[in-house]
């Protein structure tokens, strides 16, 4: 499984769900935090990748 995006997606879901359950007790608040965290990880990673795109790999 070497798809960077797939790994990013799975990792974001795992971590966002973990922190949502760790820090919130209400289902609604968990959903909200999970979506914010997961979405932020995805969006910021893609944004960073886009910014770094012009730079050479090595």
């Amino acid at each position, binding site marked *: 499984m070497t798809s960077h995006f797939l790994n990013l997606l799975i*990792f974001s879901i795992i971590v966002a*769900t973990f922190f949502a359950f*760790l820090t919130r007790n209400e289902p609604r608040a968990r959903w909200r935090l999970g979506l914010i965290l997961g979405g932020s990880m995805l969006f910021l990673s893609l944004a960073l990748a886009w910014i770094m795109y012009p730079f050479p790999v090595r």
Partner: protein
Amino acid sequence: MGSRDVAGSPASTEGRHRHLALACALAWALPGAGHWYLGKRARAGVFFCLVTLSFVLGAALHGRFSVRDRRAPLLSTLQVVACLGTGPLEIVSRSFLYGGPIYFLPEEDSILTSEGRRPNTPVGRLLRSRNEARDSAYGTAYLWTAGLMNLLLILDVFDIGIGRKD
């Protein structure tokens, strides 16, 4: 309802401390077990699934089961702590991989020789081969994250146990 409130129980201080220590030990031994012991059953199930999934993905994707390396003592020690956070599951997996619970890089591989950093021992060679796998970076992220999440769970169990958190 059904929760084991260690902080509010009328038992002696020593008994409360024992309950708290047991809850934290269970949390390390099996992800989610500490929450289960304290009566947080639903949360325990979710935490068990998340930490185990992360660990299994890490092991399957050639994650780095780190060993303490004298060339980078601080970083490699922190990596070992992150790995060990998962508990006995990590120790058993490591034993299958390296043929024993090995946490220190053998001295032959810790010394820089004229050949550079080429590993000489089975542990060093295995570590190198896993590092060179294409998916190793992903696996390592999953593996260390599983351990670090479980360490956070131990702290959470402690907080619940002393009544600082519901």
